[in-house]
């Protein structure tokens, strides 16, 4: 009834155009790269200075000078380019990326995103997230619809420290695809097994409709 992380990644991948420049956040969003629809080829950017890298090498064949932002080994493809960190974030901040897909703790109906800190305990770490949310033309989030405890992650206002203000435009959750338009959650797709009321009950702010709501389905992956 709910999409697995792999299926969320598959769904997010369907919206990426051929030739798009894409940054995928560390962790689950990285899987989006596996599911490019046939005939489309996106170019993947990583903060640490590679454009157009390829998949992970076979174990034992890693080159530790060729890694992605998650410090995982990647490979070269035809047309790869290397550059330094300032040029890399010029691409980000300068609005040259078409899509960034990030994980999140919370997304507010205003588009506010919280994904870098769960509060004052522990060691804070931000990486490139605060830059990415202001750079890409389209900033999407991929996350479970609710927390492990069942609390909504789509909320009226974030309770956790913000990564960015008003920056998210689409959420691929485990239950729905939701756009953020003018400070409102607009439901585009939901898993067919769930009624609108049931989905609303798991969502921390009002779900608005603007046209028909599609079925959110994904192949078994």
């Amino acid at each position, binding site marked *: 009834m709910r999409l697995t992380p792999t299926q969320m990644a598959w769904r997010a991948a369907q919206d990426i155009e051929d030739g798009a420049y894409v940054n995928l956040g560390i962790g689950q969003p990285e899987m989006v790269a596996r599911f490019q629809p046939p005939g489309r080829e996106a170019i993947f950017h990583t903060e640490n200075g590679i454009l157009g890298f390829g998949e992970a090498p076979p174990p034992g064949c890693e080159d530790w000078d060729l890694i992605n932002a998650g410090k995982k080994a990647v490979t070269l493809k035809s047309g*790869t380019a290397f*550059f330094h960190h300032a040029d890399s974030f010029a691409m980000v901040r300068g609005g040259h990326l078409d899509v960034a897909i990030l994980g999140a703790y919370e997304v507010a109906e205003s588009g506010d995103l919280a994904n870098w800190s769960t509060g004052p305990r522990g060691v804070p770490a931000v990486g490139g997230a605060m830059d990415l949310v202001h750079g890409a033309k389209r900033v999407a989030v991929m996350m479970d619809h609710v927390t492990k405890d069942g609390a909504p992650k789509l909320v009226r206002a974030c309770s956790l420290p913000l990564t960015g203000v008003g920056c998210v435009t689409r959420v691929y959750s485990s239950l729905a695809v939701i756009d953020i338009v003018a400070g409102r959650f607009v439901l585009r797709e939901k898993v067919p097994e769930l009624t609108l009321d049931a989905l609303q009950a798991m969502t921390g702010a009002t779900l608005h409709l603007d046209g028909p709501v599609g079925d959110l389905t994904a192949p078994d992956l």
Partner: protein
Amino acid sequence: MDKTLPDPAAAVAGIEDGMSVMIGGFGGSGAPIELIHALIDRYLATGHPKDLTVINNNAGNGHVGLAALIEQGMVATLICSFPRSADPVVFTEAYKAGRITLELVPQGTLAERIRAGGAGIPAFYTPTGYGTALAEGKPVEEFDGRPYVRERWLKADYALVRAHRGDTMGNLTYRMAARNFGPLMCMAAKVSIVQVSELVEPGGIDPEAVVTPGIFVQGVVEIPDPAQEEALNRAGSRYPEVPA
């Protein structure tokens, strides 16, 4: 993904009246002569584009390239650092007659403003120009006891650039000092069109040697043996060759 364009005419077809156009080159070195001349051809055939704002380090030399663009009356405003050259007659006459507006910018500030435009930095502080006529009216602030001038980013609708080798994804290398403003302008324009002497398939450029990554480039057109402004001027060329 293939960003190849068939010819210079197609490459400049999207430039409209009133647009801002960054044109690469430091003097003739790196000047995209064929792209500029294609723009002139279109203007002569259609009357467009005109009222352009052009950003270049200089203001043209002789009667080819940027000078020819100005000579046709296509340029309303020029943003540059050094509008002098061996033969600056075209710009000088247009400027003195009030047919062209000049915004003079110190060269390093011009470069940094363009980079800032490409890098999403709306403003920055520089010591350059402090206390001079070129900083008049600009905000001044002290950092660590020293005064600095605040400068704004510079962006454009189009960039026309000459590089050396390009692949079909838009990755570029340049040739010696012809690099100059090219990589910056590719970053700062909505649409960057690049003429390359040699067009190769992806993989034809060492990833370590890429100077402009393809993300900054929207179109590439191959011009195998590009004209050099300096050589044209020494030969006394004009563009178009015989004015109608």
